């Protein structure tokens, strides 16, 4: 972000700056207008500056961009004519300066003696600083901030009388404590750039100053530092210390080495004019060898047009580049040698130059062209299955929800999921938002229960909801030790069929409906599955939960969520009805290819039998007694289960419907009676199941 006073910018412009024209140009160049503060006769405009354009973090930078749009290729010279000789001799100032690190690219230091810092900062400086969001401190500090905003060069000024002995700039060898100007203690990471004298740390280079050399109203002699520090160490230090200042913001994005000396000169000029004092005509300039020479790149007309989808001529390309301060030479009508201006640190490759051509041409002028590429289409089975499940669930009247991938740190305890369970999760986020979002979910159930209860708390008690998402788990032999699977989960509770219109009493969801849902889905996929009842998971009511198996592999679980688990949730007591839940991994589910078996020409006979089944005996086991009795039994389906009045304790009454058919003939009643006898005997012999009388 960069905020500036519009009047300031206009005052620096030699060609005027129409407000609407300026804002429009910035907008179409991708510098979003973040805010505008209206001061009546002036406006403070804040623009969003992306990380690649630190040159836009100054009034000069924004003006240059405006000039680019106007085709005016020469910006006014901000550097005053101040006689100064810069030498590579670190002893020319009152304090010796020792640069002991490769992270300093430029260090320009000049000295002014006898300044008067007791006066008021001129109103125009105060006005411009305030509108740019910078607080006014005292004239010298304000001037340093003014230069930063004007040309983008961070300046640091030391009170020379407070510096004890030599000034050293070095990387700290180990984490080091430092107290900032704001009296905050921070810990510098190893490698941070620290400037110190013989006794005290003075400042964290390019980031923040300390108390020791602070410039105050009483300050008489000053050393001006206009330097260039490496952007990587600046970023790392700023991030690790959580200190971001106007200077660090610019250094970490990159500041041109070319502004170090002009920054010092503007400071000398302004300070001596406004605060008096005599400056030392010889200053110190350290240079590490980082070239200030403009970079040269070659781009071709062919590649530019190929990448932009345009048909620009060499003349057009060169004009666009020249307008935004790039030099161009093209001798063969194809290869263009581009000289990159020193302030454009982001231009490294030909594609960077091509972007400049594109934006100057105008993205709005690029004519969209349909993609003409043959690429083979590859089916994504997970996507296909996820959508198929969604469509099925919509048909079943379910509503899809989306919950976060992370759940509370204590979710496993709340869900009573046992530690040895496959569905126990312990993958924690190192930096969670808070402990409510700490654990990567090993299943979707926490989110669905939470959603159900949240809806109950606003009076929505009858719910059928589902989610399709990822579950996460550890897997040593998998990439990075983690794995994840796409799962489907559904939760149902409350009334499924309300009384009225012929229904005498509300019919409510039970765990059998979860089984019915699973069955319907598996039938759609033509997948044979098995539910193995078990209390292993811990989340379900005892005896009312089980694992879902396909081809001998566990793919999920199903059951009735226990009251104790529901009560672990805030407002869990609102869940008065049964809460049925199922979840399974659908990866690997295939297309359900099957043929249609045509009905028999002969009529079927259907009979219903009310069986008295001892609890714990599963339908999937005793149904074999029935189906195994004869080939003429073509279908056996449970119609109802009942416990209560008339059914002995420990037993369940199960109503099953049996369909008899033979495709070659009409069945006789006696024949059916014989088969009946046979399976009733098998039921009795194998499972002690009798007919309920």
């Amino acid at each position, binding site marked *: 972000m960069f905020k500036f006073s519009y009047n300031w910018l206009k005052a620096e412009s030699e060609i005027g700056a129409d407000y609407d024209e300026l804002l429009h140009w910035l*907008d*179409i*160049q*991708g510098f979003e207008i973040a805010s505008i503060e209206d001061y009546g006769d002036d406006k403070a405009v804040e623009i969003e500056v*992306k*990380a690649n*354009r630190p040159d836009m973090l100054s009034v000069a930078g924004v003006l240059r961009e405006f000039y680019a749009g106007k085709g005016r290729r020469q910006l006014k010279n901000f550097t005053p004519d101040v006689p100064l000789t810069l030498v590579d001799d670190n002893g020319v100032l009152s304090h010796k300066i020792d640069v002991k690190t490769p992270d300093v690219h430029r260090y320009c230091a000049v000295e002014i003696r006898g300044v008067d810092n007791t006066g008021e900062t001129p109103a125009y400086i105060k006005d411009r600083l305030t509108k740019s969001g910078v607080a006014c401190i005292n004239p010298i500090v304000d001037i340093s901030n003014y230069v930063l905003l004007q040309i983008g060069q961070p300046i640091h000024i030391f009170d020379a009388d407070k510096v004890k002995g030599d000034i050293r700039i070095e990387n700290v060898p180990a984490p080091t404590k430092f107290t900032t100007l704001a009296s905050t203690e921070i810990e510098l990471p190893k490698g941070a750039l620290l400037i110190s004298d013989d006794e005290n740390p003075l400042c964290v280079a390019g980031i923040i100053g300390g108390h020791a050399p602070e410039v105050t109203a009483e300050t008489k002699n000053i050393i001006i530092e206009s330097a260039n520090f490496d952007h*990587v160490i600046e*970023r*790392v230090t700023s*991030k690790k210390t959580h200190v971001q200042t106007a200077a660090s913001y610019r250094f970490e994005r990159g500041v041109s080495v070319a502004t170090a000396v002009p920054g010092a000169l503007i400071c000398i000029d302004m300070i001596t004019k406004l605060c008096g004092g005599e400056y030392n005509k010889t200053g110190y300039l350290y240079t590490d060898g980082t070239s200030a020479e403009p970079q040269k790149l070659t781009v071709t007309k062919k590649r530019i047009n*190929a*990448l*932009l*989808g345009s048909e620009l001529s060499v003349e057009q390309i060169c004009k666009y580049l020249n307008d935004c301060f790039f030099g161009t030479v093209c001798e063969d009508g194809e290869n263009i040698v581009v000289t990159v201006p020193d302030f454009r640190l982001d231009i490294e*490759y030909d*594609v960077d130059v091509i*972007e400049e051509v*594109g*934006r100057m041409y105008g*993205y*709005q002028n*690029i*004519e*969209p*062209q*349909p*993609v003409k*590429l043959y*690429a083979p*289409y*590859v089916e*994504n089975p997970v*996507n296909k299955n996820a959508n198929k499940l*969604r469509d099925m669930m*919509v048909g*079943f009247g379910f509503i899809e*929800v*989306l*919950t*976060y*991938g992370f759940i509370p740190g204590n979710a496993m305890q709340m869900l009573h999921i046992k530690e040895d369970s496959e569905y126990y999760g312990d993958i924690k*986020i190192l*930096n969670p*938002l808070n402990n409510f*979002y700490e654990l*990567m979910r090993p299943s979707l159930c926490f989110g669905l229960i939470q*959603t159900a209860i*949240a*809806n109950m708390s*606003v009076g929505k008690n009858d*719910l059928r*909801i589902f989610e399709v998402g*990822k579950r996460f788990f550890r897997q040593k032999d998998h*990439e*990075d030790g*983690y794995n*994840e699977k796409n799962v489907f989960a559904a939760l149902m509770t409350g009334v499924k069929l*309300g009384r009225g*219109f012929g229904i005498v009493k509300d019919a409510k969801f039970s765990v059998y409906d979860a089984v019915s849902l699973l069955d319907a889905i598996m039938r759609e996929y033509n997948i044979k599955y098995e539910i193995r009842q078990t209390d292993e998971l811990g989340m379900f009511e005892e005896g009312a939960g089980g694992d879902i198996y396909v081809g001998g592999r566990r793919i999920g679980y199903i059951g009735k969520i226990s009251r104790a688990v529901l009560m672990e949730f805030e407002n869990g007591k609102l869940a008065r009805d049964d809460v049925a839940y199922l979840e399974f991994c659908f990866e690997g589910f295939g297309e359900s290819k099957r043929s249609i078996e045509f009905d028999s020409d002969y009529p079927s006979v259907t009979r219903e039998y009310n069986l008295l089944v001892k609890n714990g005996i599963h339908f999937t086991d005793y149904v074999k007694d029935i189906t195994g009795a004869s080939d003429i039994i073509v279908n056996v389906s449970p119609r109802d289960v009942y416990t209560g009045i008339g059914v002995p304790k420990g037993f369940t009454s199960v109503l099953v419907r049996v369909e008899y058919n033979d495709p070659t003939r009409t069945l006789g009643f006696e024949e059916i009676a014989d088969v009946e006898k046979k399976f009733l005997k098998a039921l009795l012999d194998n499972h002690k199941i009798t007919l309920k009388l």
Partner: protein
Amino acid sequence: MAQFIDEKRKELEEKLCQSDAADKLQGVESSFKKVMKELFAEMKTLPNDQKKDVGAAINEFKKEFEERIAAAKKKLSEIQKNDAVIDLTVPSPEFIRGKIHPLIRVGRMFEEVYKDMGFSIAYGPEIENDRHNYEMLNMPYYHPARDMQDTFYLEYPKVLLRSHTSCVQVRYMLEHKPPFMIISPGVVYRVDEIDPQHTPCFYQVEGLVVGEGINLANLKWAVMESVKRVFGPEYKVKFSPCYYPYTEPSAAVDMGCIMCGGKGCRTCKGTGWMRVAGAGMVHPNVFEAVGYSRDTVGFAFGWGLNRLPMLYFKIKEMRKLFENEISLWEQL
């Protein structure tokens, strides 16, 4: 004969007057048919010279009663309509259709559009490593996004929750050779405190097209065309320069704010626009990182899928997407 006709007329008139129900009217109709048969039979017995006049009288009689019966039928049906015992404006609650989450609904619209354009769908893991999520995408270790303030880590700095689905593209490029056109929809995570317009996880649909001759104009078409197909041709879209480390040239896609019609409101932070996608030509450094030649060309785009359902369904707060208030989704 005329007397006979009069008798029958009286008989039928009497019946017609009493026909206040459908079954009675049916009785009148069958009596009428019977009478007509009798009259024609009677006419056959008459001498030829009388047949003409009597025939005309019978025809007149026939016409008259056909009209009167039709009128009676019409009147009866109107009466019945008003007296209907079933109010067909009352639906029973029998059939309930479920709903797909608005985010997924809009995501699927985009998926369909891109599938029609020939894109395949690619998926990848949500738990990622720094190599796929950052390094190979031209984001070196000091890149601001790699900080713990922006990215959720499981093991710092190696294992993280993907901050974009661009890592799916990286994985895809490592395993496939161009040409290809893919989209990678999915959940991504960023350290954002939950407030009306921020959630720590959200959805993206990213696209990647790599192949000879691909250019920025193709990219502009792909994003503009998809908006047109999903939202309608009248929708305003802005395509402007932007910056992303993994694309160059880069572009931003903004859509006119549907809440305020572009005038500026809280949702669009007063700008009249909502940033919905980032895009650009894939950076040669990315191609190099996945083992392609630097001369390879291709474009990539990424829709922030939280914003689009907000625009599509006029949902004012992003966090509502994850609050799952069922009564809201029932309105879809």
